């Protein structure tokens, strides 16, 4: 029996698109290669402990009842109640930039106050920037790309403050080296500083359980361990997919969350070098990936004086956001503790460290060296983070275990070439790939993070399937 829509990938965007369509009685099947859903933001167990693979913080926090903003819009479209997410807010987060410390919370005035203290001549410019941000609706699909670094100079004169603003926005969402698109900067600045951070009690699993439960309840089908080997195209129109097992499934329409270049490969095949060259050029190869180490402690981080939810740090006056020549680049990074959110259920302490990493380096390491290198890099990262945040010096004595993952891990579990977390630098805003009845959803459609990926699935499902029927 043919499906109305086949969706490649059970990440945030695939599940969200699936819910929208199944909710209105479409016959939908989500196909996932991995044995677990979640994609870039999944979860796993190690030595009996629950780990989140991606979650630092759910961005875009707003109080219940706030209208017309990404988080509540997404929940409403998916018919998931705000209270069901069990959001716990951050206490505060920090930017530690070359000796300066700026705190921020879910109250934007706190951040503005910090900027006013550190850069008194710049605060008016920063406020004017926020005032001139385009409304949410305008920053959506059809915006031309332009450089945030250039645009920021219209409002901010101190080069150091520009670097300070680039640090968290790039690390939490830029697929471009040393810059990000101006519209993406606006989205991220809002998501981080005007809205803020929270964490579902129970971690990302709470959100994923809600999505999967809802999808099944409205009649959607979810198949795990079912990788899509290729997308079947006839006369320029997608008609279905072929699975790794050889099984073929037919549908009216295919959505792919596999990524831009990855989806082109599903259409044209690995071996078709002509198409692949064209595909890679137009999609833009992803260059940025991350290394992460997660330490489990026998005490809560706050007991050691580590009380920030998320800390972005950088040593030196310049923030480098590019693929490092070394395995990882510890000049900058992120330190994150789920324990420092309200409602956190974890009885042990968790501290996560993230830094830019070079995918090719990790991919090519033979296994014993790979394992050894992970430990070396995790130690380097801790040393660098401790230089920025001295309280971290105490965690060695309290460490129960440590897990690490690399760009290779990300590529293995999500299929994103190069271990890309934010996808290709060239976004495909309308989701169209030149094949009829095929649309791209997720990160490479240009919406960022968890909330962005949900909205991407929702928006494309609305525009390319539901509105068409309403016309």
């Amino acid at each position, binding site marked *: 029996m043919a499906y109305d829509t086949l969706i490649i990938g059970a990440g945030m965007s695939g599940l969200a698109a699936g819910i929208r369509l199944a*909710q209105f009685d479409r016959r939908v099947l989500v196909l996932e290669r991995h044995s677990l859903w979640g994609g870039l933001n999944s979860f796993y167990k190690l030595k009996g402990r629950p780990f989140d693979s991606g979650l630092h913080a759910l961005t875009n926090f707003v109080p219940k009842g706030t209208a017309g903003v990404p988080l509540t819009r997404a929940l*409403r479209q998916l018919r998931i109640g705000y209270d069901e997410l069990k959001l716990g807010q951050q206490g505060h987060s920090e930017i530690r930039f070359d000796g300066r410390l700026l705190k921020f919370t879910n109250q934007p005035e706190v951040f503005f106050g910090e900027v006013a203290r550190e850069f008194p001549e710049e605060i008016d410019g920063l406020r004017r920037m926020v005032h001139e941000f385009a409304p949410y609706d305008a920053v959506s699909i059809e915006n031309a790309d332009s450089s945030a670094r250039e645009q920021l100079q219209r409002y901010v004169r101190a080069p150091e403050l520009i670097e300070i603003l680039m640090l968290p926005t790039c690390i939490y969402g830029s697929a471009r080296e040393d810059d990000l698109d101006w519209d993406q900067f606006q989205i991220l600045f809002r998501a981080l500083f005007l809205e803020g951070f929270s964490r579902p009690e129970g971690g990302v699993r709470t959100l994923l359980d809600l999505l999967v439960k809802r999808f099944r309840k409205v009649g959607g089908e979810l198949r795990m361990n079912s990788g899509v080997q290729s997308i079947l195209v006839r006369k320029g129109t997608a008609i279905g997919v072929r699975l790794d097992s050889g099984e073929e499934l037919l549908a009216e329409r295919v959505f792919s969350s596999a990524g831009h270049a990855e989806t082109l490969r599903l259409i044209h095949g690995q071996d078709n070098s002509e198409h692949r060259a064209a595909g890679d050029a137009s999609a833009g190869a992803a260059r940025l990936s991350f290394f992460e180490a997660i330490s489990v402690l026998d005490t809560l981080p706050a007991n050691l004086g580590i009380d920030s939810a998320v800390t972005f740090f950088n040593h030196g006056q310049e923030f480098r956001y590019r693929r490092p020549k070394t395995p990882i680049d510890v000049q900058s990074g992120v330190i994150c503790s789920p324990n420092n959110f309200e409602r956190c259920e974890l009885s042990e302490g968790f501290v996560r460290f993230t830094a830019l990493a070079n995918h090719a380096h990790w991919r090519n390491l033979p296994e014993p060296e790979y394992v050894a290198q992970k430990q070396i890099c995790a130690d380097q990262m801790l040393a660098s983070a401790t230089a920025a945040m001295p309280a971290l010096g105490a965690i060695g004595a309290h460490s129960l275990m440590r897990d690490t993952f690399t760009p290779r891990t990300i590529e293995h579990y999500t299929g994103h070439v190069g271990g890309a977390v934010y996808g290709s630098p060239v976004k495909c805003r309308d989701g169209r790939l030149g094949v009829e009845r095929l649309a791209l959803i997720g990160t490479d459609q240009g919406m960022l993070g968890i909330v962005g990926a949900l909205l991407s699935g929702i928006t494309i499902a609305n525009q390319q399937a539901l509105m068409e029927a309403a016309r």
Partner: protein
Amino acid sequence: MTQDEVVTAIKDIIAQIAPDEDLSSLEMDVRLREQIELDSMDFLDIVMELRKLYGVQVPEKDYMELATLGGCVKYLHPLLEKKSLHCAQRA
């Protein structure tokens, strides 16, 4: 469906879409968007639910007719007159 039942049907759909809104004191002739938070994505959902529950097609050019509860009754009553009210379950 009577005209009152059309109002009930619409309110029931809005309650599915926007469970946190208070619908008890909605005015008939004031735009819904001015009384509760509904954006264009939500209007799409109202139309989709009408189609799903009652088989009624509202073309995009007619969305404006649904701006107020009074407008909904005027536009939808002729289409729903012969159908019976059944409330959307929270699917």
